Every structure is written in C-alpha cells, then in structure tokens.
C-alpha cells in the first residue's frame, strides 16, 4: 500500500466523515436557533427574524458573529478554571455523542462512490451505553458552571439541574433497556434493523409507554420546557449560565441544541424505526394489493438518511411546540413526577417486557 493510498484511506474513513459530521452539528445548532425563533414566532402571532437576509435566513450567522466579538467577562470572584472549563466540557460531551450514532445503512450514494461507505463514524457494540454515559458527564458541565460562577442564581440553577438530570436518567435508562430487550442488542444500527418489520413504538403493550417515558425524560434531560427549571428565566434570570457572555454563552447554547438533536435522533432510532421509511400498511395487507405496495415503494425512494432526519426535525418541532404551549413545573413537582410516577411506570414496563419476551409473546 503506498503512502498516497494510506492518506486517501485516512481521508475517506476519518477526515471526511468527521468534517461532514462536525459541519452538520454546527450548522444544525445554528439553524435550530433560527427554526426555534421562527416556529415560536409564528405560533405567537408574530414574524420572528425578518431583517437579516430573506426572512432573516442569515440571522444565526449574524448572531454568531455578534457573540464572537462580544467581550468575554469572567466575574471577579468566580473560579476561573472551572468557569472556563464548564461550557467546553458540556459542548464536547454533547458533540461526542454523535460519534456513535448511525445515520443510515451503508450506501454508495446512488453509485457515485465505488464501494459502499457506512454513515457513522464508529459502529460501537455498546453504542447506546456510550451515548448515555456522555449525557451523564455533560451534567457536570452544568453543575460546574453553576458552582464556578459564584452567583446564587447560578448555584440554584446548577442544583436544580443536577437533581433533575439524575432523576430523569433513571426512567430514561429503563425505557432504553426495554428497547434493548426488544431488539436484543445494544448496537444502535442493529436496533434500527430490528424494527424493519414493526417499529418499536407500535409493539403493544410496552412500546408506546416506553416511547412516552423516553420522550418525557428526554425533554427533561435537555432542560427544555416544561422542564426548563435550571434556566428558568422568570425565576433564576438565566439559571446556571447567568454570568456567561460571548462565546462561552454561545457554547451553552450550541450544547443545548446539540443535545436536543441527540435526543431526537435517539428517539427516532429507538422507537420510530430510525431510517426505515414509513409504511402506511403492511406490504402483505389485502394480499399485497397494488396501491399499497406502490405507496410503500414510493416512500422507499426517499434516501434513508432523509427519513431519519425528517423524524428528527419533526421531534424538534414538537419540542418547540411544547415550549410555546406549556407552563413550567415547580421544582418539587418535577421531582415528584419523576420519582413517584415515571420511575414505577418504567420499572413496570421493563418487567412486562421481560416477562412477555420470556414467554415468547413479543
């Protein structure tokens, strides 16, 4: 193998995928803020950004430039090390989660490439555990930010966040184990493949319950409304990032959006069939009558990646919709909801799945 081959190999297997993925994450984070502002605006009978470019399409770039040139303030009495480290840690953890996520089956891009390439960076056998672990480490970023700012509002925000993330990780983990039981694998790609016949959300009776459990926990995990207590604007000013300015502030923002995307990707992969196209009806229904198979065939024409992203964006839209509609829970109500309702329910779901699986009913 020549040197050039090796270079090409590294480029193919590492540099290009990393560049594509990183570009996707960054652009996505920027334009999710645009999407959020636009969707919220239209739900609230207003227009949202309109001045920067066509319908404000350049707004995220203008925001980025602005934040980049903002003065970087570290409060005099803050713990400077932790204060600087916190947003970086949070952002790294949320971006690193993308490494293990498969975006589609191996593809040759309709014959453009000579051989099929996988649409993931690494196909970890324990992919789901890896993603969960990173989300937990990300919590440290929030707590560190709250602690290091030396501000009581930030501290309260950090405390809330620690309590909330720990409480909601447990029902979330149980919901995931339910899926793992159903799929028989911890590998995300195999979990998707296991849903080629039937998405896990419609596996009765446990599928819908586990889906809702995971969705609710996911919203809580990403600190989104109605569980946005750590940054409850009208109570704690901005919660754990009250003291942050400029790019550090932007990092918290990007991390939040990246986390939202990760959660949406996981929901799609675990419950909504990942990159599997929507099947209106089973192919065999009515003896495979032509209209049914035609429509299903039509759906299959769309590339799998787009199917996955479509589901992801629908879920993101759903998150924004929640924010426009629901009041915020109180701290103790939030905890009670997790420990007294979600946790028992998730345990029951898991148990039911295990029993039914053992009896061969699933």
């Amino acid at each position, binding site marked *: 193998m020549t040197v050039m081959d090796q270079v090409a190999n590294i480029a193919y297997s590492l540099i290009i995928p990393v560049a594509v993925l990183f570009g996707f994450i960054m652009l996505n984070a920027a334009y999710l803020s645009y999407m959020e502002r636009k969707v*919220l605006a239209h739900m609230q009978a207003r227009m949202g950004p309109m001045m920067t470019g066509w319908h404000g399409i350049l707004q995220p770039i203008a925001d980025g430039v602005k934040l980049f040139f903002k003065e970087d303030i570290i409060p005099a009495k803050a713990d400077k090390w932790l204060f600087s480290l916190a947003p970086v840690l949070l952002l790294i953890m949320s971006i690193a989660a993308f490494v293990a996520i498969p975006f589609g089956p191996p593809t040759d891009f309709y014959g453009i490439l000579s051989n099929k390439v996988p649409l993931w960076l690494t196909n970890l056998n324990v992919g789901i555990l890896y993603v969960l672990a990173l989300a937990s480490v990300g919590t440290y970023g929030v707590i560190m930010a709250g602690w290091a700012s030396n501000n009581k509002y930030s501290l309260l925000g950090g405390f809330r966040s620690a309590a909330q993330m720990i409480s909601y990780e447990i029902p979330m983990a149980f919901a995931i184990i339910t899926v793992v039981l159903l799929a028989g694998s911890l590998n995300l790609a195999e979990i998707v493949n296991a849903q080629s016949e039937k998405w896990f959300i419609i596996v009765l009776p446990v599928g819908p319950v586990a889906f809702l459990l995971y969705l609710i926990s996911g919203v809580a995990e990403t600190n989104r409304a109605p569980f946005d207590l750590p940054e*409850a604007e*009208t*109570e704690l000013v901005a919660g754990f990032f009250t003291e942050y300015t400029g790019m550090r502030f932007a990092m918290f923002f990007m991390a939040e959006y990246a986390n939202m995307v990760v959660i949406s990707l996981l929901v799609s992969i675990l419950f909504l069939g990942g990159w599997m196209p929507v099947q209106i009806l089973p192919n065999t229904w009515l003896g495979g009558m032509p209209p049914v198979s035609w429509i299903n065939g039509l759906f299959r024409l769309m590339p799998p990646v787009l199917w996955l992203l479509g589901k992801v964006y629908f879920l993101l839209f759903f998150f924004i919709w929640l924010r426009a*509609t629901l*009041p915020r829970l109180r*701290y103790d109500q939030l905890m009670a909801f997790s420990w007294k309702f979600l946790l028992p329910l998730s345990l029951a779901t898991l148990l039911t799945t295990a029993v039914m699986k053992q009896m061969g009913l699933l």
Partner: protein
Amino acid sequence: MFLSPVISTLEEHFPDAISEPELRSGDPWITVTRDRLADVLTFLKITPELRYNLLIDLTCIDFHPHPSRFSVYYYLHSMEHERKLMVRVRVPDDDPTLPSVITIYGTANWHEREVFDQFGISFRDHPDLRRILNPDHWTVHPLRRDFPLGGEEVAFTHNADAIAVQADTWTEPVREKTVQDYLGLTGEVKEGTIIINIGPQHPSTHGVLRVALQLEGETVLRAMPHVGYLHTGIEKTAENLTYQQAVTVTDRLDYVAPLSNNLGYALAVERLLNLEVPPRADYVRVILAELTRIASHLIWLGTHAFELGVQSMILYCFRERELILDIFEELSGVRMMTSFINVGGVRTDLTPQFGKRVREFLALFPEKLDSYEDMLTNNKIWLKRTKDIGALSQDTLIDLGVTGPALRSAGVAFDVRTAYPYCGYNNFTFAVPTGTTGDVYDKYRVRMEEMRQSLGIIRQAMDGLPEGPFRSDDRKVTLPPREEIETGMEQLIHHFLLVSRGFPVPEGEAYSLIESPRGALGFFVSSDGTPMPRRVRVRAPSFVNLQALEPMCRGGMIADVIAIIAGIDPLMGEVDR
C-alpha cells in the same frame, strides 16, 4: 345635633375625646385627641354594631403654617355595614409623634412608614420605622409644605462632581447595611440558609420591586419586599400644578390603567367643587374605565402566564390590548397617557369612529377570552402551579388592607363599584366575581371573570349612551367652546383665566374611592382655596396589597414567590409614586 349613629355612639363613649363631627359627601368625619386615638380605633373595630374592620387609608396633610400643623387621617370601612368613617388626629409641629396602630390594623405598617418618611411624624411602638420611599440617608421630609419642590439638587454636568462628593458622605452608612438588616434578622443567620435578592432588576418583578428572600434549599423562610426605587414624587409634583394640570401626573401612577387614575382624581376634585358632570360624561367615563380594566387585566394575564412559563400568552394578550390602545388613540391621540378624563367631564366628545371600534372589540374579545381559558384554566401544570399557592384567610387579608381581585378571590365581595357607586355604576347590572380560597388560581379566575363582566358593562353603557354635553358647562371650571370665545367677552376672560391660572377650589378636603383594576384606588385632595392643591394623596392599591406578599410567600418555594407576585399584580409606578 344628630349627624350619624356612629358619631352619636362615639360621643357617648368618648365624650371628651371626640370633636368637630361633620358629614362630608355622606361620610361622617370626626376629630380624636391624640392620647385616645388607639382606644377609639379599637372601639371602632371591635364593637359589633360598628365593626370598622378595614383601614382603607392612613395619611397626613400638612397645614403649614397652622399651629397644630399636621392632621393624620384614618379612613375606615366596615365590611359588614358597608359604611365609611374618617378619623382625624391633629399633631402639633413641636411634638410630631403618634401612637402606632399596627396592632389594631396590620395594614398601618407601611402607611405609617410612609407618613414618617414624607412628613417626619414618628409613630411610637412601630416595630420597623424606616423610610420607605425616599433614600435611607435623607434627613428631610419632602411632603412638608415648607420643603421646596426640587429641594434635592439634580446632577448636571456642571455640578455633578460636587454632588458626587456630597453623596459619598451620605452613602457610607447605607453601604454598611446588609441584607440581614433589611430582612429584620438579628444576630446570626440560621445555618444552611441563603439570602437572595429578587430584583430590583429581575424579569418577573413587574418593574423595580425588590424582594429579599431567605431560603432554606428552595423553601422561602422570609420574603421582605422593598419598594421606592421608582419614587418620583408625583404627590409633591401635583401640589405644584393647577388642578387641571395635575391630571397629567395621575396618568403616570398606574401607567397600565391611566384612565382609572384620571377618574379617581377628577372625582375628588369635583367633590371639592361640588360639581355635577353631565350624564354623557359619566357614561363615557364608565366605558373608558372598563376598557382600561380589560387592558390592565390583559397585561396581568400575559405577564402572569409568561412568568409561569407560558411564553405565547403574553403576545396574544398584547395583541388584544393593542385594540384597546387603538381605541384610546382614536379618541385622544395618545395611546397610554391619555389624560382624557379630567375635572368637569372628559376632554373631548367621542369621535365618530369610537362607537364602531368599541363594538368591534366587544364582538371579537369574548372569543379570545375563551381561547385564553382553553389554554390555561384546565391545564394540569397551570393548576399545579397556582392551586393552593399564596392563600390567606379573609380576616388576614382585610387586616392587611388588601382590596381588589386579591381580596375578592378569598370570597369577600367588596367592590367599590357596588359598595359606593360612582359615575352611575348603580345603573348597570354586573356581578362581582368572587373566589373561595384566595389562592393564585382563584385570583386568576376572578380576574378572568371580571373581564367578562367589564364587557357587559361596556355593552350596556354603549347601548344607553345619552346625547348631550360631554363636560360640565360651569364656565368657572371647564373651557368654553370655540364659538363662545369668538362671540363673548366674558367667555374669553374665562378661557384666559382657566388656561393661565387655573380655577380656584373652595377650601376643604375630599376623598374619592374608586375600583381600579388593582383594587380600591383612593384620591385624597386638600385645597387651600388657591388654584393649586394643598395635598394630593394617592391611596395606591398595589402599595397596600404588596404588604401581603410576606405572609403569602412564607413556606412556599422560589417559583411560588413569582406566582404570588403575579397574583397580587403590583404596579411599581403606583406603589412608588
């Protein structure tokens, strides 16, 4: 001479303490000697046939240079018997002290602090006699008549340095004050608690309210509201304007419901002048006051929902409020500070488009109101956040002087519009919505229902709107119309005098009480016979209601404090004046 059964009873029990009994616009007024004040008030409160259980107002007038210089007024109301009584105490200049009545009426706390702050009358046995509106380091009492307007030097470029030096010597003792002092905590702060300041710059304090919270975890042990950040001396300013000019400063009190303030002030001055306004003016006043109520409640609903996390509601509410502001703009050319209701009637006649616009609003709004309720009333999270939060008993609320929706939500149907009708409110049929427990949710329900009732009042007023003049034709008070000025010499003189000097008002005092969106709004105007008032006292409902914040918050969580503030709906322009 028999004036009123109340006065007879009092004269019987306190023959040597009661003097100068009189009747003013239906209310008995008495003067009590200083040493018997507490006894008389206790008697008035506990005697079953009197039962004056609500202290509406406690204020002071400076009759400088009269020898017994100050008069302190206690305006009482009996919930059971629906009648009022004014108790006056004369306080000499050389010994400005009075006994505190906090133990009798809890609401006296802030009132007494305000009188101390503005007039320098000190109240014996007051637990916390500090300045409330003016800066702590001041040594002067600005509402005294011998204190000049603008007695405090304002910093401009040419004198800023000199003032800064002076201010440095002032601020030293202020800096040493810790939050513990503000909370009234003595000694060591309890282990494991933190003290956090909400405000004066905070997203959900409705302006510049500052609440010092002592927290254990997220549980509130104590909550001390601090006001005065927006004190602009409106009462002092009004003393230096003519009666008609002072209408414009009343706009700036409750800037969310400026027309209510105009109305209260105009009624007080008209009472002094003994002036009848024509029926058309009364109807227009009612329509505008109720539109204002809806506009104000819309702001309350929007901010309340926003503070509990429903982001969209504030925009929907502002969208509908915009329609009301458009009506005001159509009528007066101004959107907020209209000063449209003034002494003698209203400023101009209705515009041709006014009726159409109001009817359009009446047709559109009920549906919008339903959609707000769809979003909140049965929302599980909304219920969890507002039910059983900030509830106080009826007696506590009355003791603290709370009025308006905050009191009605606890089941006390006290509404000035029905108890002491003004502007012909007795000609309209409307219900006074009440709640049961007085929690934040009940306050929400009461205000939502009030908006519906207001719509009904506006509809009735629009249907019954009489033709005729829109302001009194007493040419000593109101401007003559253009044609008369062009033809009559006397009218020209009137016009000249009214514009250049204003109208003189007969000597005396008058109190007007109206139902503003936030509660009982009182204007106490005293005249010395000149074209400028001697004193304009504003009984701001928000100021009084805010005293209930501390007992409402105790034992709740931070998030509840936000909900409770929103439920009280204070407006800092009115609190700080």
